[in-house]
């Protein structure tokens, strides 16, 4: 009796990795999923914050995919390890701060280590030749296999027939003729395959699955690094960049101003880590102040926060300022006019 072969599938929660895993399951391979949490995943985090996202299913799509496919899923906290990928990408960035090729190498290398540790035989991904401008080109697919150290134990079922046979194919663990030759950015082949496999529901993330591909987010991250004088971050930093209106009126401080109730609740969780401001005389937002400030800065911050309150047209607005350490106090300020807030302050 032949040995039951086992594959670990990189599962993002999107359609391609779901199809890749299903195709290999259908060949009798035991497949388990692995998913890496970098801190920049669009998946999940924003669901719980903004009202506009609450209509979306409150689910983690990688878990959902695993359940649909009847396989286990291992979610790996990679926030700390991922820092080196983002801060020093060997292959550089894409359009924004997205180190896609280095990221793929990182995840496949991690999956390879997991594979070895758990006695699995090979790795599968949902990559398609030509689908992504940086990480999924015919020139870069071999880079992922080589630099991750996985070599020919990396199988891409959706485009395998366009690539040299991997060891799972050569050894007959999987039948190459039952794999696919998808190529390019069209989604039609994947949708046809999903239909053929009876997969009717799948996640279609708008704008990708990583905040680092988002221009606005990348600008905020670059601003954070510049303001601190070093390229570094922790998990709280990168979470806060996803939330609120960010204004930097002076190089040495920034305000993160909640835009709605959900963001207020989220920012409240950080109020002991930052000086925070709230309007008292009128309904208004909560704002966190990131940086070191003088008295004049505090007044400016209060006037900005008042601008985003319902007292924006009032003569005076009471703004409570609660420092990270020390007693709270209230400033009576005149809200800034809209024209007094230059576009350059918006990060």
């Amino acid at each position, binding site marked *: 009796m032949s040995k039951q072969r086992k594959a670990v599938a990189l599962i993002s929660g999107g359609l391609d990795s779901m199809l890749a895993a299903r195709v290999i399951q259908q060949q009798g391979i035991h497949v388990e999923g692995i998913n890496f949490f970098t801190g920049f995943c669009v998946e999940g985090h924003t*669901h719980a914050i903004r009202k506009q996202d609450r209509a979306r299913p409150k689910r983690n799509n990688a878990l959902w995919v695993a359940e649909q496919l009847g396989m286990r899923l291992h979610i790996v906290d990679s926030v700390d390890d991922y820092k080196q990928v983002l801060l020093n990408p060997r292959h550089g960035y894409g359009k924004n701060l997205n180190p896609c090729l280095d990221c793929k190498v990182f995840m496949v290398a991690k999956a390879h280590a997991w594979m070895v540790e758990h006695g699995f035989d090979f790795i599968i991904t949902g990559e398609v030749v030509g689908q992504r401008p940086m990480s999924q080109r015919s020139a870069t697919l071999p880079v992922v296999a080589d630099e991750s150290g996985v070599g020919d134990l990396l199988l891409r079922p959706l485009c395998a027939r366009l690539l040299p046979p991997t060891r799972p194919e050569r050894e007959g663990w999987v039948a190459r003729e039952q794999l696919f030759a998808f190529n390019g950015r069209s989604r039609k082949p994947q949708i046809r395959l999903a239909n053929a496999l009876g997969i009717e529901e799948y996640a279609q993330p708008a704008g990708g699955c990583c905040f680092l591909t988002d221009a606005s987010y990348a600008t905020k991250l670059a601003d954070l690094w510049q303001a601190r004088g070093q390229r570094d971050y922790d998990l709280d930093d990168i979470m806060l960049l996803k939330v609120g209106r960010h204004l930097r009126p002076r190089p040495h401080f920034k305000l993160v101003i909640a835009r709605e109730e959900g963001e207020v609740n989220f920012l409240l969780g950080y109020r002991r880590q930052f000086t925070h401001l709230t309007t008292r005389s009128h309904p208004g937002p909560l704002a966190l102040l990131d940086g070191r400030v003088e008295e004049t800065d505090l007044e400016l911050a209060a006037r900005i926060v008042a601008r985003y309150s319902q007292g924006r047209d009032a003569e005076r607005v009471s703004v409570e300022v609660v420092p990270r350490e020390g007693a709270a106090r209230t400033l009576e300020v005149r809200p800034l006019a809209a024209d007094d807030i230059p576009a350059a302050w918006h990060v």
Partner: protein
Amino acid sequence: MSHHTLDARRLLCPLPVIRTQNRVAGLAPGDTLDVLCTDPGAANDIPAWCRINGHELLGIERREGELVIAVRVGPGDA
């Protein structure tokens, strides 16, 4: 068999699942774990994680903006 509590409040998806997964890895089959969460998504994700990994969801209790998700650890190699 023993009972444990995990504080995953203020954490957003998928961190409550990751913390649950890592905590359960150190528990014995039959042990129970109460996971305290504030992310409403955890009410879907932790049960899904239990189903696919062979653990039992004992219940979800809602208390003043918080969730208490009770899990019984399944067989080691489920």
